[in-house]
């Protein structure tokens, strides 16, 4: 179980030069194929020999997938753009600092150099029962070890559980969600543009996947509309270690202000559910109101309606309340 071995199980390795070639390979090999981006999540699975794809399709040499370009009314970021390139991109920093800050909070400089935006939003959960190769629901089995009464579930979810209680680990996902980003997914010749809200899926829809991506799908880019360019934003990530660590919880929020009134808002939290959660009730509670300390306190209370903690993660409830409160408080004059 989850024994780390020094040899990766053998597979056929392809490095297509174009997106079309990559798609052809993915179609040809179907369930046997694995898309390789930065490899930070992928190689974990391979080295533990828990995932044993027969074919690995490395996107590393497809230059077009790393481009960051203007698109229509916003920006289009190639799925293979590294997290460092996002952190350093002047236009992103100027117009979408929420994404810059979120990407800056991912792990270490080395990991950001290697990790890609596409890989970051598509990465698998870090539930350690699942990552250790236990036959849980997410691994195709019929139980959740993390939800059991004696389980170690400090990092697990307080919302959106459906048999599985793992959480989404991505730092950039809530930021992209708050910015109303869309994901461009190709499968063969078909291209779909999927709202972030629909891209991340919960266990009640498919317990074995974190995103809508399935065999043969390739995330080619992520589009960020101009709608939230230049908005007031707030990002905060709570982790066990300051140096680097996955989020225990994070909040990403964008606000449009009309004087001291909240004209529009997006508030998304992560680390609380198997997918990033947009808090629409919180948004409704603050839109049209004057930003104030009381409004922020109220928003925090609204945020935790309906949450349900596990044995060891009660702390996540006040943490979520406070993160949302602090996000709303950030726009108080």
């Amino acid at each position, binding site marked *: 179980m989850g024994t780390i071995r020094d040899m990766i199980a053998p597979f056929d390795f392809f490095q297509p030069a174009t997106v079309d070639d990559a798609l052809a390979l993915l179609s040809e090999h179907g369930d046997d194929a694995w898309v390789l981006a930065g490899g930070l999540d992928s190689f974990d699975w391979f080295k533990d020999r828990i995932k044993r794809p027969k074919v690995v399709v490395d996107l590393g040499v497809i230059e077009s997938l790393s481009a960051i370009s203007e698109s229509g009314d916003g920006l289009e970021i190639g799925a293979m753009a590294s997290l460092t390139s996002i952190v350093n991109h002047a236009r992103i920093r100027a117009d979408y600092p929420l994404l810059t800050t979120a990407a800056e909070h991912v792990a270490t400089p080395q990991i950001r150099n290697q990790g890609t935006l596409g890989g970051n939003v598509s990465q698998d959960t870090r539930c350690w029962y699942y990552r250790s190769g236990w*036959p849980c629901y997410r691994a*195709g089995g019929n*139980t959740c*070890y993390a939800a*059991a009464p004696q389980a170690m579930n400090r990092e697990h979810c307080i919302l959106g559980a459906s*048999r599985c209680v793992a959480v989404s680990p991505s730092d950039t996902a809530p930021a992209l969600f708050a910015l109303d980003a869309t994901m461009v997914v190709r499968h063969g010749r078909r291209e779909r543009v999927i709202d972030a809200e629909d891209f991340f899926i*919960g266990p009640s829809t498919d317990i074995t996947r974190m995103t809508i991506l399935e065999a043969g799908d390739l995330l080619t880019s992520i589009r960020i509309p101009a709608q939230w360019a230049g908005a007031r934003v707030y990002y905060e990530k709570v982790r066990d270690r300051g140096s680097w660590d996955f989020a225990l919880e994070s909040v990403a929020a964008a606000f449009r202000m009309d004087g001291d009134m909240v004209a529009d808002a997006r508030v998304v939290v992560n680390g609380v559910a198997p997918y990033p959660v947009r808090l629409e009730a919180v948004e409704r509670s603050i839109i049209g109101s004057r930003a104030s300390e009381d409004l922020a306190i109220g928003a925090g209370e609204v945020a935790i309606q309906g949450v349900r903690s596990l044995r060891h993660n009660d702390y996540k409830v006040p943490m979520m309340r406070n993160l949302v409160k602090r996000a709303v408080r950030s726009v108080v004059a």
Partner: protein
Amino acid sequence: MDFLRSADNPWGQDIWIGISWDLVWLAVIASLAFVVLHAIAVRLRGPARIETTPPPADVPETSRVERHSLVARAFHWTMSIAMFALLITAFVPVLGLEFDWVQLHWMAGLLLLATIIWHVIHTLGWQDLWSMWVGPTDVRDGAIELKHALIPGDDDEPKHRTGKYPADHKLYHHAAATAALAATATGLFMMVRIDTPFWTRNPYLFGDGAWGMVYVLHGLAGVGLIGLVAAHVYFAVRPEKRWLTWGMVRGWITRERYRVHFDPTQWPVDELGDPSGDRGGALAEASPRSPQDDA
């Protein structure tokens, strides 16, 4: 093709964790094949001939014979809704169309359980339990029908008139009841493992191996029900059986159908269409209506 899925539990034991999803495809394909082959066979050789001896002279002459009471029909259609909801929420995501199915599934399961309890109480209190008993006559009729289906040109021996429920209906009922009870019983245990408004999950009610058996039985009952429901729907819409389906919608069949298909000694009704003996099971409805109204 795999039949079962297994995995290593945390103690390194190889345990069953459920049926292979290949079986779902197998059930769907087998059901479709059965429907197509049966339709072709009936077209080529026609349905079984029914006994044509004249019915006893004392058959009363009302135009309708009530076949299913309102309570029985309400049960049947409610159970159908629950069954379809269960099959759709269980298997459509497996076949590729994903949606948030878990809550809908267990709620439909509870509805099915409620209808089963209702049916059992209604049957014990108000219906004739023995009308579903498979007796020697049913075995004989079933054998004739099977021979007719399997041996080309064999329709010399006509099928006899039956009691309220012919042999194939009884066998279908018992197969569906077995599968539905197995799915419901195992489903109830599986519900213990998820959070509901009624309780917090408990994954340790059984050990891994026993849970695996529960999942396998649930899966087998589920794929069995795919075939049973497909066959039921197919026969319900077949032209020569549609009058029975209308009977389940309207509650009655025509006196003419009653004379042709049923044996009044086994399913006696009085002049008004009421059950007139304790082997009956038909309930009364006597409003005059001509046989031509029959669908």
